[in-house]
């Protein structure tokens, strides 16, 4: 089964700092890597995604960096805010069926 690994398991940052989340995968059967954000007690929501043809995807304070050779991605959250406190999941798509394999998630806490 496809493995998606995330690190760290949890981290705490100060408001205004850059949060860096890591994700690695084995072999992707598709070419699209989404990140989801889940607030406590809520369902996950798509945050940002990158395709294999790109090395970087930016959306406001959120940026994905993609190292295809090493099969690693990182999500950077600049100017982190307390409202960014959530669990972040990266996922690997599994083809046309829409199967998603999620990582274990990284719980982020931003303190002011």
């Amino acid at each position, binding site marked *: 089964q496809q493995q998606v690994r995330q690190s760290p398991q949890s981290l705490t940052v100060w408001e205004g700092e850059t949060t860096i989340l890591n994700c690695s995968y084995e072999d992707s059967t598709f070419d699209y890597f989404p990140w989801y954000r889940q607030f406590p007690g809520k*369902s996950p929501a798509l945050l940002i995604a990158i395709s294999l043809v790109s090395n970087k995807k930016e959306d406001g304070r959120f940026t994905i960096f993609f190292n295809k050779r090493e099969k690693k991605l990182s999500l950077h959250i600049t100017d982190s805010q307390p409202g960014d406190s959530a669990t972040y999941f990266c996922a690997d798509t599994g083809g046309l069926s829409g*199967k998603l394999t999620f990582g274990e998630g990284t719980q982020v806490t931003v303190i002011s």
Partner: protein
Amino acid sequence: AQTIHQWPVAEIKAVGSPLSLGCTIKGKSSPNLYWYWQATGGTLQQLFYSITVGQVESVVQLNLSASRPKDDQFILSTEKLLLSHSGFYLCAWSPGQGRVFFGKGTRLTVV
């Protein structure tokens, strides 16, 4: 716009009792539908997916079953609950390319 509705919002059930969770999606014909399960503090595990009425594929065995009786409806059920079934159940749909949109979920506590 597409909307996805799950019911019930929460359930407390006894071990050995039956369970039925429902999901409907409006605003999208023939959607790909999914059931996910999340243990408290855990990752998201896909349980079932369905690309058309009457057709359901199982991804992982958890002594649960799923059915798609209508184009816009997806049902998750079991005849006998286990303690390990406790968690957060999420129905979702996908327009493709790894984009998945989740319902608000059902929180199940088995006692």
